[in-house]
């Protein structure tokens, strides 16, 4: 069986990224030796990765690895791969993985497939193509390592096992990197903001909300359900909500346990980004809105009457 590496990441708070833990779950299913590779990581993350199923954490410490820099990350991972020759490298989908792994794959003359929905025992991957309307089956037949990133929630996050041994090897690679890019500022909306792709509950609003201030009730409903706020492209294009909340083609693809679509007609651009949600609730006043074709529970009615009542009912329950 294969020797699998998981390129693991951590949040600004020093916790393992959900996607990294999901990738360990996938690696555990597919290989017999699972090594998590962590750059500039914390002890907390190293422990979490082992308890999630990694046999070992390769903890790479180097001044160039924090904050993220494409040149340092590429050089560091390429040199480790060349030295230790893993068969497969997995990662969660993230703005870091999709930024530097293409360079790693190009330099090593091997294949990379982003946002896989599943991998089989032979590392044959499925992924969405054609505006999320088709599923392609793809393989990296000849070259090594095969590199994949997994779409959020494609694999369930493992339940941590505190009895597992925490096995960490720390290494400091020698890098002769001359970076030509530099991070100069981060303007985060909210450092505690849950990554939309990881949310268990998403409450989304569309044009039917009529004005940006009406998103207050979307936010309140999301808060009561412990979820995050999403939006359609029409809404983000109008500047009512940030692009980071956009779901659908050109935005994010999500599959939460519960998705509540408010005032969303259900055009294909939006639907392809959320139709793998476990449970879809839709409220729309137009009974012919296409969102009802995919909603598990559709309500033909006025969001401005139904949502405040729903909020009130949930507040009374808690």
């Amino acid at each position: 069986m294969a020797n699998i590496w998981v390129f693991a990441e951590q949040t600004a708070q020093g916790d393992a990224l959900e996607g990294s833990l999901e990738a360990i779950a996938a690696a555990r299913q597919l290989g017999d030796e699972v090594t998590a590779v962590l750059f500039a990581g914390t002890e907390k993350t190293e422990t979490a990765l082992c308890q999630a199923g990694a046999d070992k954490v390769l903890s790479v410490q180097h001044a160039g690895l924090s904050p993220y820099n494409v040149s340092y990350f590429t050089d560091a991972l390429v040199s480790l791969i060349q030295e230790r020759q893993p068969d497969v490298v997995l990662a969660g989908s993230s703005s870091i993985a999709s930024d530097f792994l293409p360079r790693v794959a190009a330099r090593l003359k091997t294949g990379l497939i982003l946002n896989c929905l599943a991998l089989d025992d032979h590392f044959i991957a499925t992924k969405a193509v054609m505006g999320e309307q088709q599923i392609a089956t793809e393989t990296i037949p000849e070259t090594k390592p095969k590199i994949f990133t997994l779409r959020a929630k494609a694999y369930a996050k493992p339940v941590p096992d505190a009895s597992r041994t925490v096995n960490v090897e720390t290494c400091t690679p020698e890098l002769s990197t001359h970076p030509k890019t530099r991070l100069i500022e981060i303007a985060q909306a909210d450092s505690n903001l849950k990554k939309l792709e990881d949310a268990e509950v998403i409450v989304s609003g569309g044009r039917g909300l009529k004005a940006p201030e009406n998103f207050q009730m979307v936010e309140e409903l999301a808060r009561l359900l412990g979820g995050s706020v999403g939006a359609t492209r029409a809404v983000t294009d109008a500047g009512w909500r940030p692009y980071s909340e956009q779901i659908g083609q050109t935005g994010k693809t999500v599959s939460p346990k519960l998705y509540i679509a408010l005032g969303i007609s259900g055009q294909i651009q939006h639907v392809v980004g959320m139709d793998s949600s476990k449970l879809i609730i839709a409220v729309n006043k137009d009974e012919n809105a296409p969102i009802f074709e995919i909603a598990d529970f559709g309500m033909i009615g006025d969001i401005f009457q139904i949502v405040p009542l729903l909020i009130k009912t949930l507040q009374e329950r808690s």
Partner: protein
Amino acid sequence: MKIVVCIKQVPDTVQLKFDSQNNPMLDNVEWLMNPCCSYAVETALQLKETQEGSTVIAISLGGPKAKDGLKRAIAMGCDEAFQFNNAASDAYSIAHSLADAIWKQVPDFDLLLFGQYTDDAMHGITGPMAAEFLNVPSITLGSKVTLTAPGTIRVERQTELGLEGHEMTLPGMVCMANSSVEPRIPSIKGVMRANRTEISFWDAETPVSAVVQTLSTVRKPKKSGGTKIDGSDAQTAVDQLITYLKAQKAL
């Protein structure tokens, strides 16, 4: 500044219909400039407008449809357009072909712009792979590019957690994802210019071998709907919803 923009024509996936065998009817749908590529073109044109004496060169790897995209790029305001074609099939061989052609034809480029991904293949890796082959720095998920000093750009990058600002020393490559500006509609004058402009062909080399193979492509199964209720009485509707959510163990 010499800016090279790589573009691709793709079927309009929003309007795409499927036949009775669930195959996409690619001949019955409009083909357009891939949305992320149009953000790259718009970004290039805005940079050109702030930098006198700049040139924007659009290139496209592909068959007859690639020409339509290049004509549109000229109509929008690009100065030159080049087409070439080979049998490159995966992102690796496409990126290698593009890098190779750029290295031979425009070795003195300052900035290379790509779309983050194309709507058809959805690779999302061609730009940074080409940057690696050309040995220039790369930034992906770009939403805005500004020239801050000669040979230095600032790139805003939209990540899952918010907006980042990066500085890059040129020459370099940026992939545009969401544009903070709407791609311009070509003017009448631009369209006339595009009609007069011959799209030149570059010779294409035999591509390097693909490293990723596509085995099959099928239509994504359509999710079916469930219960639909009349919500004209809001209180009854909310009660029904709560009952439903409890039954589904979602509350």
